[in-house]
Structures are given as C-alpha cells and as structure tokens.
C-alpha cells in the first residue's frame, strides 16, 4: 500500500513541478535552520578527542561568598582559590578524577632566540592527562611525582613547537616562561579549537608557577558513571554547608557543579539562582526559536497542502465511496506529504553542513581554519533529529488540511464542495 502511496506522491510532485519546487525549497530552508541549531549544539556537547569524557564531567569555577552581616558579596566566576580546592574539593571521594587547571598569559622566549611570544599556558595537574586524551607525537606528559615536585616541564602543541623551534626537535630543549626556564618534555598533536576546556598553546604543571597558592582554578570532576552525578552534586552541597558553618558570617555559593551541556550555556553568573534562571531563559528562547522555525514554513506549506488537496477532493470522495476509512485517508495524505518533507529534509541537512562549515566563526566561535570533528556532524542522534524535525513539520503543515478532507462527507467530496 505504501508503495502505491509513494508512487502517487512522486507522480504528484512531477505533475506540479512549480509548487513541488517551492514546497521542497521551503522545507529545505526550515530543516537547514533547525539542523544548523541542533548540529551546532551537538558539536558543543559531543565528546571527541581530547575531550572524550564530556558526558561524565562536572565543572566548578565560581566562588561567591556573602557576608550576612555587612551584606557584602565577593565573587569570582572564573576560578576557585587554591586553598579552598585543597581543603574542601580534593578530599571528595566519589569522582574518579578531580582535575584543576589554571589558564595564564605568559611571555615565552625559546632557547637560543631573542623572539618573544605572548602565549596562553594552561597550568594543570598530572590527572589532566588522564581526563583528556591527547595524542603525543613526541615525549610524554609530566608524571604525578614531577607535578608534586613543581618541576618546570612543558608540553607543547604541534603549532607552538613549530612556532618556537621551527623544524628542530624541541624535546629536551628549554624555553623561558615568564622569565623562568622550562624544559620541553612532550609535543601533542594539534587539537580542535572546539575543545575549549583543554585548549592552550602549551601545558605546564601548575605547581611550577610562582605563587600558585594564590591563584584561582577551574575544577573538572570526572564521574565514574553519569548515575554518580546526584551523589557528587550532594557532596558539593555538603562542602558549601561545611564551609559556611566553619566561616560565619560567610555563606558560600559554588554555583555548581554544572554538567557539560549546562556549562557551555553558562553565561558566567556568580550565583546558583541566576545561573538556573539563565538556563531556564535559554530553554524558553530555544523553544521560541524552534517554534518559529517550524511555524512559519508550516503556515506556508499548510496553505499549499490545502490548495493541493482541494483539487483532489473528487478522488478522495471516490475512495471514500468505495469504503476507505477516515484514518486511511489521513495517513495517505500525511505519508504523501512526508515524501516531500523528507526530500526537503535531506537537502536541508546537506545545506546545514554547508552553513556550519562556512559560518563556523559565527556559529562555533572558532577560527576559519579550525577543524570540526566528523563524529559530531554525522551521528545517529543528528539523523534522528532530522527525521523528528521532518515529522513535526509534516504534521504541522499537512495535519489540519488532511484532517479536514478526511472528515468531509462523501457527497461534498465528490461535488468538490469544500466551503462547509
């Protein structure tokens, strides 16, 4: 039966090429917009090397204290003080790993050169190399012992190594970082600029930074399994309580821990309530955007479907006269329309890839030469999303007209009288 519907749908498309093209174009445009939004968010949330554990990671980087007597608030939404991490966060037992990072601007002068470069370095602990899976082209990361001893060692990314040492082998060479000598112990393969948490020009043990005890850190908590999230969140809430009890009249707000999908949307507010509000607003905005992207083309296509069905009222009347039931007519019309929608959907998906590649600076805030990992683009959830979007659009655009023709009395259908 569906084969006949399929053939009929194709025949209809051929019969009226002008309207077919307009319908397909309208659908493709809508699906392109929707898929661009979905794929962009998928790219920001997908796990890919080196950030392979995004779905199991929780983030903390806000430290707000509120003095209940003077009403003064002190907040830092970019990091948590070292002493607090050491005393309160590191003793937590549930996470598999607790990683601290400290991003800093550095002045770098490679050995045997007078060139000075301003580069971003990420101070990390040794567990950083377990949480994030970098591919080492040469050398290896610094070990736990080297980290603890505050060894001045650096791991460079390929681009930095080329910039500082041209074609020479950088392993074992040294460079001055903020006037202190560091030895290069490893070089890692280039990473996508989309890996925002782990990105830097080079990585060093944060214990090698002078006065690191006065610095502030971003904290990543890796759960063994996603089901541990509530437990970890509870532990952080306990930490807040413990600190508040030990330091009256201060009340602590750590504004987290946030899961990755919330972290990418976090506008950097210092308070839990504000962040939660911002996330709620974002949800509303997304719903509004999707409704708009579906509603406007659906109104268009609805008008077309209605006009197209009007012309076929006699055919539908005959089918009904021969015993076709309402739901059969309904399914037939929806199925026929779905073929058009799916053709438009496929074109739309391809166009959305094109849009993402050509507009990546705007959509993903990465440079024009930044690579986008393939698995984030072509994946089962993405295809499922296209199908769901097509189905929804189909239902919105053909639902009402199909319902109306399906319940029209046979005589009216045969007389092509749709004024009732």
């Amino acid at each position: 039966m569906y084969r006949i519907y399929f053939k009929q749908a194709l025949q209809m498309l051929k019969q009226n090429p002008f309207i077919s093209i307009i319908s397909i174009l309208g659908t493709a445009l809508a699906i392109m917009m929707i898929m661009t939004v979905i794929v962009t968010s998928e790219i920001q949330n997908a796990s890919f090397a080196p950030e392979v554990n995004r779905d199991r990671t929780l983030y903390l980087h806000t430290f707000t204290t509120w003095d209940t007597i003077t009403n003064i608030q002190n907040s830092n939404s970019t990091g948590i003080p070292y002493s607090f991490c050491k005393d309160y966060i590191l003793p937590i037992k549930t996470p598999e790993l607790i990683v601290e990072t400290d991003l800093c601007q550095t002045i770098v002068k490679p050995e045997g050169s007078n060139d000075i470069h301003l580069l971003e370095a990420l101070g990390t602990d040794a567990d950083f190399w377990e949480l994030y899976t970098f591919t080492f082209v040469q050398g290896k990361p610094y070990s736990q012992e080297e980290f603890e001893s505050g060894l001045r060692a650096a791991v460079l990314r390929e681009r930095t190594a080329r910039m500082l040492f041209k074609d020479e082998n950088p392993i074992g060479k040294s460079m001055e970082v903020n006037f202190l000598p560091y030895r290069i112990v490893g070089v890692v393969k280039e990473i996508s600029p989309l890996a925002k948490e782990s990105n830097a020009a080079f990585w060093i043990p944060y214990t090698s930074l002078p006065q690191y005890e006065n610095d502030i850190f971003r904290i990543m908590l890796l759960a063994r399994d996603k089901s541990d999230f509530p437990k970890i969140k509870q532990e952080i809430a306990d930490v807040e309580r413990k600190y508040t009890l030990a330091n009256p009249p201060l009340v602590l707000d750590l504004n987290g821990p946030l899961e990755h999908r919330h972290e990418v949307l976090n506008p950097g507010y210092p308070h839990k309530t504000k962040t939660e509000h911002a996330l709620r607003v974002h949800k509303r905005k997304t719903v509004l955007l999707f409704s708009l992207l579906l509603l406007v083309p659906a109104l268009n296509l609805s008008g077309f479907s209605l006009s197209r069905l009007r012309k076929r009222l006699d055919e539908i009347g005959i089918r009904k006269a021969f015993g076709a039931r309402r739901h059969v007519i309904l399914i037939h019309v929806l199925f026929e329309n779905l073929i058009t929608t799916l053709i438009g959907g496929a074109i739309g998906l391809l166009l959305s890839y094109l849009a993402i590649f050509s507009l990546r600076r705007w959509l993903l805030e990465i440079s024009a030469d930044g690579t986008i990992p393939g698995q984030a683009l072509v994946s089962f959830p993405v295809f499922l999303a296209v199908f769901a979007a097509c189905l929804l659009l189909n239902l919105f655009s053909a639902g009402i007209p199909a319902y109306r023709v399906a319940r029209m009395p046979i005589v009216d259908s045969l007389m092509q009288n749709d004024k009732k």
Partner: protein
Amino acid sequence: MIQHLFTIIWNERRSNTWILLEYIVVFCVLWFCCDYTFIALRTYMREDGFDINHTYRIEMGIKPDCQSDDSTIKSQAYFYAQTLTERVKRYPGIEAISFAICAFPYFGCYSSGEAIINSDSSGADIPIYRIRAAQVSSGFSDVFRIKLREGSGFKPEEESTQPQIIITPFDHKGKRFGNFYESVDIDSIKTILTDQRRGQILAPPSGITERPIKEIGVWSPLSYVCIPLPREGYDLYWNQIAIRVAPEADHDFPERFIKEMRDQLNIGPYYLVSVVPTQKYRQENIDDLNYGEGQLFSTYVIMGFVIINVFLGILGSFWFRIQSRRSEIGLRIALGSSKRKVQQLVVGETLLLLVLAATIGTTICLNLFTTNLIGTLGIPTIDRNEWGIGWEQDLLNFLIVFGFLTITSIGAVLYPARKASEISPSEALRSE
C-alpha cells in the same frame, strides 16, 4: 475597489487565513528583529563621550619573584610611573599618556560612589546621588579627548592648591548630574562632597564635561566624579595606562612599539606585556551585551529566513489561487477588464491582506513591549526610557517592516499576477 477586494478576500477566507496568520507572525518577528538591530546599531555607533580612535592600553606585568604590595616596590611606584611616562613620551608619535584607576573606557573596572551636592555633611533630608568614581592623572582628557565646557583639566598635583573634581552629566542633553532615578541640574552645583579612596573631598567642581560619558556595558547611565590620581595610587601593574598615538604614526603601532620599547620598558620589577587597542575592549563589551556582530548576524539570518518564507508562501498560494480562479478571471477579461486591471486586482488583494496583518501585528508588538514577555524569552532588551528611546523608534520599525513586506509581497505576487492576466477569455466559456 477596496470593498470589492474585501469581498474576494472573504470568499477565499479559508486559504487567506493561512496567509494572514503567516503575515502576522512574520510581521511581529521582523518588528522585533528591526527594533533589536536599531538598538544594537545605536549602541555601536553612538558617541560615548570618549574618542578612542588611535588610543591604546599599555599592559605591564610584574616579574614572578616580585609582588606589587612589596613595601620597597610600593615606595618606588611613583618614580617607576614617571620613568615610564618619560620613556613612552619620547617614542615618536605619542601624543598623550595617562594613568587611571577604574576609568579606562570599556575595561570592565567600575567603582561606584556617592556624592552630596551643595552641602558639607550628609543628613536625613539631604539627597545622596549614586555616581561612578574614577581617579585619573592629568593627561586623561587629552588621551580620550574629553571636552570640558567649563573649567580646565586636572593640573598636576604639585601645581594645585585645592582639591580638584571633574564631573560629567549623565543625560544625553548634558544638563543633569546624578543618575536616572535621582538627578540635579548640573549648573546648580556649587560644591560636591564625595567619598573616595583618599577619604572625603569637598570642593567646587573644577571642570564639567560637555557630554555625558556612557560606557557600553553599563546598563544605566551615571555621572562620573573624577579626582586626580594621588601619588600613592600609582602602580604600573594595577593602573590602567592609556596612550594616544598620532594618526600618521598609527600603522602596525602595537607590534612596532612592543618590539622597539620592550627593553626600555623593563622598569624595576615591571615589564611590558602587551599594547591593546581600546577599540578591542569596546568590541568585547558589545559582544557581551548581545549586540555584537555575531548576534546581529543571527538577527539578519532570522529576518532573511522569514522574508524568504513569506516570498515562497505568497508565490505558491497565489499561484494556486490563480489556477483555481481561471474561469472567474477569464470572465473578467471577457467582460472587458484589461490585463493591467487583473494584475492590479491580484496585487491589491495581497496588499490588503498585508495591511490587515500589519494592523493586527502592530497592536500585538506595541502591547508586547509594555509587558516583560520579551525579556523573559531571553531576547535582549533595554530600558527605553533610560536611554531616551521613544515612539519614533516604533514608527521607524513599522515603516521599515511594512516597506520590506510590501516589496517582498509585490515581488512574489508579480509572477502569478502576470499569469492571471494572460488567461484567455475562452477559459471562462470552457468552464462548467
């Protein structure tokens, strides 16, 4: 003619409902996109009271084995600042240099304070005005070309015998001092009592700026109360150091300056980190406010999307309509209607629908502005009263959106209208 068009629209009400609905939705979307774009462009292009072209911030670092609050460094801080000033001034093309605390434009360092006007003490019935407090060195108004309508800029400390205070108006007319909620006529100010880091200062204003200083990133406009940066306030690491470069010298300036001055600006424990154009900070603030290029581009994309949809919708719907009304149009032509008249009929029908939608759409949009619905949906809005935006913006929105939709609709309906005018009168005869 219009009554006749209404009759046609009413007879085709089924399919016209879809078009009308689409028009209304698109009208509202375009209205808000238009409003947003205008406010973003206003923000982008407005005069902020600073001239930041050819100005830069010199960023200094402190060497790892030193700390800025070290007492020996602190005691030398003013001397280091003087050394830096001399060396930078000698560099070709430098027109002015200044040091500031919480005053560098768009830098994100704010210090709020309070001021009492025409009174030497605070009391229950004496109003206190919330203001922005800033400490700047004498070259500040030269670097950012801040024009004073009264008085002169700060004199260096040693030349001045009395406390100096420069104030700015907060409103766009340049008449009021204070903030949106509490303000006073700026010309009525005889003395200002202000509480800043150096303790209380009571003095008549030594200068009033011509225009308000409105920094992007500050939601509500505030008056500035500037006092001279005291000797003990100098610190190359914590101060914001600003320079103005002559336009003819402003080619690859940061790279050239860093390369040639790096050794010279290795002063005591401080070293030169970077030279950043002020424009970059402004752009970052605009981006943070959701008025950046990216957000504007998103708005254009949404506008483009709905306009293409309207175009396709009108094109398709009227094409269908012409097909189903061939006999009627044939009859009109048979009875003497010219091709032009048939075309006018189709175009008129579209435009009348648009006028209906625009009326409903405008009512919806104007009412939505009075509620906070737009804000709760995460669409950035600003308080129109505070920034002096009135009904003229609504009129502009209406005209632009209506104009846009008229052009799009006429463009879309022309092909079906031409097809309709080509219908042969014999079609009317063939029809049952």
